[in-house]
Structures are given as structure tokens and as C-alpha cells.
């Protein structure tokens, strides 16, 4: 492998990894604030993809408008799903297991609902921008560059929200101590709703950016969910910055691994990495060892 190819793979890895990061950070936000493992997270990605497809392809809405609308629709969907399912379970005993069972059920339900409504054919969305950039010996499609730019903007915006806004402080406080947050006047239930919505929106952003590259179908959320889990395990479950670093790391390791072997090995590499991390550092590569 020449250095140019190596570098190109690293760049591709970072680009795909930035999307893994968005998926993983959604799972991490939900787990961090409500300790719920959202097994229906891939369906946010899948439905977000369909929203984009219908808006941009079927109805011909320009992509600069279609993407924000689809992201907002997925936000609302996330809020509704939380309010109609998780909300009730968190009040009851055994929520740790019941939320896993319910999100798994939701995942199956949404996949089959999508199959009934949208059919089993694979859909795709045309590139948002055509053309290539050449930097030295590296050629990069503008579409891929756009993915990365959107990821950077999204992560920067999320960091800003979490660090600088009233909502972000409330989310962080709730995730660190729910009772203490309630005592200072933070309504945990409202924070949970918004967090679920935000996580859905992050999934939809990833879906929008990957729709021109990977086909949309009723099952397209599942592999993404699994990648999201690898990311949060790498980054330490429940950590937003951990998920970002974990996503980028996974993307790069996959890309280089695929270059060294072949593309069938992509998932093998990802899960081998996950198993290794669970074995050696169960609190995550970037998480803190529990004392």
C-alpha cells in the first residue's frame, strides 16, 4: 500500500467515521440521559432516509430544503416515540429490561411498517453535488467532502448546545444526576423527550448524507445500529465526545482494514475491534475506568 492510497483510505475512513459518530452520539445521548439502550435507533436512520427520498426524489424538493425538513420530521418522530412508549416504562419497575424489549419491538415494527408502506425495492438519492477535488495525489468527490463538512457543523452545533445553552446544561445535569436535577427545577421528562428527538435528528442527518452512497430500504437501519453500538462501546457508553472519537476511529480502522484485506471483511474488522475493546477495556477506549 503506497502512502497516497493509505492517506486516501484514512480520509475515507474519517468521512464515513464522521457519520458513525453521528449515529453513535445519538445512542450515547439517549443512554447517557435515561440509561435506555435504544435498539430502534437504526430506524431513525432508515426513516430519515425515506423522508429524504420522498421529499427530494418523489416530490422534487431541493435538497437544501428537503434535508432540514426530513431532519425536523425525524426529531418529531423521536419525541413521539419517547412520549408514547419509553415515557411510561421509565415510571415502572423493571424499566431497564422493558425499555430494551420495547425498543427492539419498535425496531421490528418500524421495519415492517416501512416494508408495507414503501415496498422492498432499494431507493437512492442522487448526489447533492458533483465533481471532484484534487489535493496533491488524492482525489476526493465533493459529495464526500460535503458529508464531512455537515458532520463537523453538526458536531460543533451539538457541542455548543451541550456546553453553552440552558437546554444543554439541563441535559448534562439530568444525565449526571436525575434527582439532583429535579431538585434544582429541571423537568427530567421534558429533557428525555427532547433528547430522544435530538438523537433521532442526528440519525436523520447521517441518513441524509449517506443516502446518495448507500441504498435506502426497510432494513438499512440494522447495520447502522450495529455500527452505532461498536462506536459507543469504543467511546464509552453514554459519552458524547467519546462517541465522536469512537466513530472516527472505527471509520479509519475499517477503511485501512478493508484496504489490507477486502470489503467483505469490513464488519468482521468492526466487530473484532469491538470484542477486543470489551475484552481489554470494557469501559471504552476513551471512557474512564469506573472506580
Amino acid at each position, binding site marked *: 500500500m503506497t502512502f497516497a492510497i493509505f492517506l486516501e483510505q484514512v480520509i475515507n475512513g474519517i468521512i464515513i467515521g464522521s457519520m458513525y459518530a453521528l449515529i453513535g452520539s445519538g445512542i450515547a445521548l439517549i443512554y447517557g440521559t435515561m440509561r435506555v439502550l435504544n435498539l430502534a435507533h437504526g430506524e431513525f436512520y432508515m426513516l430519515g432516509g425515506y423522508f429524504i427520498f420522498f421529499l427530494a426524489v418523489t416530490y422534487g424538493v431541493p435538497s437544501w430544503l428537503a434535508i432540514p425538513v426530513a431532519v425536523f420530521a425525524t426529531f418529531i418522530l423521536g419525541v413521539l416515540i419517547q412520549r408514547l412508549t419509553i415515557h411510561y416504562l421509565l415510571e415502572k419497575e423493571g424499566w431497564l429490561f422493558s425499555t430494551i424489549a420495547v425498543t427492539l419491538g419498535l425496531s421490528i415494527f418500524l421495519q415492517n411498517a416501512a416494508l408495507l408502506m414503501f415496498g422492498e425495492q432499494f431507493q437512492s438519492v442522487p448526489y447533492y453535488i458533483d465533481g471532484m477535488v484534487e489535493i496533491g495525489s488524492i482525489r476526493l468527490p465533493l459529495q464526500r467532502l460535503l458529508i464531512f463538512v455537515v458532520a463537523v457543523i453538526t458536531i460543533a452545533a451539538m457541542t455548543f448546545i451541550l456546553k453553552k445553552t440552558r437546554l444543554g446544561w439541563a441535559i*448534562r445535569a439530568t444525565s*449526571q*444526576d436525575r434527582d*439532583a436535577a429535579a431538585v434544582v427545577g429541571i423537568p427530567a421528562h421534558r429533557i428525555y423527550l427532547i433528547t430522544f428527538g435530538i438523537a433521532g435528528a442526528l440519525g436523520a442527518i447521517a441518513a441524509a448524507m449517506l443516502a446518495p452512497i448507500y441504498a435506502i430500504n426497510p432494513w438499512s437501519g440494522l447495520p447502522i445500529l450495529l455500527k452505532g453500538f461498536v462506536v459507543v462501546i469504543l467511546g464509552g457508553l453514554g459519552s458524547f465526545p467519546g462517541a465522536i472519537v469512537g466513530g472516527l476511529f472505527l471509520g479509519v480502522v475499517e477503511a485501512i482494514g478493508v484496504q489490507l484485506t477486502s470489503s467483505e471483511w469490513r464488519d468482521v474488522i468492526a466487530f473484532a475491534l469491538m470484542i477486543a475493546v470489551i475484552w481489554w477495556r470494557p469501559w471504552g477506549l476513551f471512557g474512564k475506568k469506573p472506580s
Partner: protein
Amino acid sequence: MPDTAMLQVRDLNVLYGDYQVLWDVSMEVGQGEVVAVLGPNGSGKSTVLKAIMGLAPVKSGAVMFEGKDLTKVPTHEMVGLGISMVLERRRLFSQMTVRENVLLGAYHRSVNKETKSRLEWVENMFPILAERRDQVAGRMSGGEQQMVAIARSLMSKPRLLLMDEPYLGLAPRIVKQIADMIKRVNQEGITVIFNEQNVQLSFGLSDRGYLLEGGRVVLSGTGDEMIHSDVIRRVYLGA
């Protein structure tokens, strides 16, 4: 006993699942008082404070605060009524800084606009908060964390402050500092209810106390009355 009670707990029963922790607990707290809730481990004294704040499952009974039944108010609205709490073992937002913790004390809309003046007030009262403002709360000592926790609870301009085991796990020297803080809080006109296992320690601070045993109030009165009571000896020494 106060003439007009600020807080009245009436026949409070609390159950965790099938396990009853409080049995018909009643108490009254007057404006400006410092009241101790006493009892050995597992007597339910923590649960009394949690139940007032809406953090324990109340099965029956009422908690009247200035004519309003608190059992129907969600925890996150308590600060709006003028009630704040220092939770057991401080419970700071451990990954956030001292300043962030203190500022979050004024999160509620009822005081949010006054954040700046409240911050000046508590930092003036406890200068260590300004000195340590950028330190991550979880890395402070127990005593320092307790001060931050008290400061956070004062940000919401409470008229009633509940303190769940404020001395727990602290060295004797620090206990004295915290006791002084509580006195200053009370001098500001804030009513304080706290719980503590050590009876001697409590009556350096409180006007009156209630003694719990097995989830029931078995004795109440002023410090002198209680310290010399046979009931105290029985509950604590089993004699």
C-alpha cells in the same frame, strides 16, 4: 411548637413496593426554625425529607406547605414554591465545574432572571466558591462539595431548605464549618430541616427535633427535653 406552621406533615405513609418505610408520620415546622429529624440508621429519617420533596412514593397523608399540598407537586416545581434541598452525599453534577453547579441552582424560571445577583450573594457568603469556580466538582473534598451543594440549593432563593444528612462522611472539623454555614443560612431567615443520626451534634444547631424509630415518630421536643428523655436512651442504646 410554633403557632402557625410553615410546613405540616400529616399522617404520612411511604411504601417502597410492599415495604413500608414511614408510618403515620406527622410533624410541624414554623417559619425561621431549625428542626432536626433524628433516628438511627434505617429509621426513615431520610425518607421524611425525600417525601416532602416528592422523591419518595407517598401512599397516603399530606404535606402542607403554606396551605399547598406538596404531595401533588412534582419535584422540579418545588423550587418555584420556595423549597430547596441538599441531597444526601452532596449529589453534585460531578463532571461539571463548581460555577456550573452553582449556576444550575438558579435553573428554574422563578429565579432564572436573578441568576447574577443570586450568584453574587452566595459567593459573597461563601468566598471559596469564587476561588474554586473552575474546578470540576467531583474532584473536591467531601466538605468542599457540601459547601457547593449548599450554595447550589441557596441559588433558588428558598424559604425552606431541606438537608439530608449534611454531616455524613465529614471530618469533625468540617462538620463544625458546615454547622456554621447552616447557622448563617438560618440567620438569613431561611427555615431549615435537616436529619442526623448523632443527637448531640444536632442540638448544637436545631431548636427542636423529632425522633424516628422504625418509621414512626416516637419523641419530639426541644433539645434539652429530648436529650434527657429515656426514649432516646432506649432507641440508641437499646436499654
